[in-house]
């Protein structure tokens, strides 16, 4: 009897696990097929001259362009790595200044009423203005250059960081605050030891959003006024009618956007070790 039911269970177990595995494999195959199909269609549309190469180049050509661009300065006057470094520099300077200003500001606004009252009206005024709209003011004070573009990135990342930090610190669990109060902690101590750690997950959400916004903004800023950078490079690609350069630029921008958010993800894993992974909610 027990042997019988044990046998039944083993069968059921194998069946279920096999089903899950098969399903996963099926989905995986679909995914690989779909990407391959996309690349093939792209490739053959170009090689069979269904589309003029003025408008589209094949994926092979684009990858070639990416590789040769490291050693070829034409047509835009910069190597690919120079453009990448230029864009990354602008992004990271703007982003870091945005975090260094935004996180403390959000924390203080969230915790101390007086900061909230003094700064929030101004913040609410600034909040709906897209980063690019700051260009005239930034040009006025900083001229044209890395500093100006970083300042625009700053505006692009700052708002999201402040908002998320603010919400994060406000969501501090009241029970924890009460416990600390009962133990005789001062308001600043509670803020420092409970408020800030509680806000951490939201701060990282803010940083991730901000990083996305920073890459989006840098491309626009470089297209508008720059003589280097990935945004500048794709703009030049259009000026000289080189589709492969535009496509190469788009791919590189995508890759570096991913790398940047991955870096923040890593930082999050290090800082928020105490938080279980794959947590719910």
């Amino acid at each position, binding site marked *: 009897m027990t042997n019988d*039911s044990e046998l039944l*269970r083993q069968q059921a*177990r194998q069946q279920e696990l096999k089903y899950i595995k098969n399903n996963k494999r099926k989905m995986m195959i679909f995914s690989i097929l779909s990407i391959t199909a996309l690349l093939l269609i792209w490739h053959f549309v170009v090689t069979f001259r269904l589309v003029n190469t003025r408008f589209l180049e094949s994926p092979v050509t684009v990858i070639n362009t990416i590789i040769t661009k490291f050693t070829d300065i034409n047509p835009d006057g910069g190597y690919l790595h120079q453009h990448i470094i230029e864009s990354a520099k602008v992004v990271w300077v703007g982003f870091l200044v945005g975090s260094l200003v935004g996180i403390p500001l959000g924390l203080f606004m969230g915790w101390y009423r007086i900061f909230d009252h003094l700064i929030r009206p101004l913040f609410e005024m600034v909040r709906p203005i897209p980063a690019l709209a700051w260009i005239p003011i930034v040009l006025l004070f900083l001229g044209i250059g890395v500093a100006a573009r970083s300042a625009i990135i700053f505006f692009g990342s700052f708002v999201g960081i402040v908002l998320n930090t603010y919400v994060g610190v406000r969501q501090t669990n009241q029970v924890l605050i009460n416990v600390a109060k009962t133990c005789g902690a001062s308001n600043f101590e509670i803020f420092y030891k409970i408020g800030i750690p509680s806000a951490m997950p939201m701060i990282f959400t803010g940083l991730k959003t901000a990083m996305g916004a920073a890459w989006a903004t840098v491309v626009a800023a470089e297209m508008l006024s720059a003589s280097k950078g990935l945004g500048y490079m794709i703009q030049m690609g259009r000026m000289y009618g080189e589709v492969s350069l535009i496509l190469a630029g788009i791919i590189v921008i995508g890759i570096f956007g991913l790398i940047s958010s991955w870096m923040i993800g890593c930082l999050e894993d290090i800082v928020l070790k105490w938080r279980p992974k794959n947590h719910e909610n």
Partner: protein
Amino acid sequence: MEEKLILQAKNISKTFFSKKGDTEAIENVSLNVRENEFLVLLGPGQCGKTVFLNILSGLISATSGEVILDGKVIKDVDTRIGFVFQKTGLFEWKTAMENVELGLKYKKMPKKQRAENAQKYIDLVGLHGFENAYPKQLSGGMKQRVGIARAYTANPEILLMDEPFGALDAQTRYSMQEEILKIWSQEKRTIIFVTNNIEEAVYLGDRIIQFTEQPARVKKEYDLSFLPRPRNYVDEEFLRIRTEISDNEDLTLE
């Protein structure tokens, strides 16, 4: 007392498989449910009663064993079996009325007829005047009343109730227990009621089936049909049965 069997569970076992290891939730449970009885499944928290109820309803499938309704094995959810969920499971975007109409809506009953049917049960659970309220505007007890009305309106043969009063405060819980008996006596249906509360079980059940700690097995069956209704919590016989069950209960740290 020879009564018609409406639902049978035969040798139900359920094991959850995962990479970390198997969890055996239910081990070889068999039971018979008689028509129109109030059957209580009693067991310590997390013992697998909810899983068992989900298997009866067809929401999840058993690893082995079968559920037989009116003489036929059921494989999937069946609208002849209604469900009252522990967390109410009301749709927050629907009014009390629309929530109650749910089962009829999915049966494609015309709107007017639907409203008439639903109104009857809304009145029965004492929610007259709250037809257009959204769940957010209702108290915990009222929400569960909507849940009960919803299950009845779909007109099932059997009602499964999964710790429906578990989240309510003691006061509301007592009044809901009386309420459910009142409804049951007016609208005779088979009820299978899951709880971890012994007093509640003794107060409500015609029959109590006691489950063991996980994995759930049938530990003992108590026939309480001799105990007259309405029952009294401090009645001598009531207390005796309560103690008997309680002594038999597996100790569990909830």
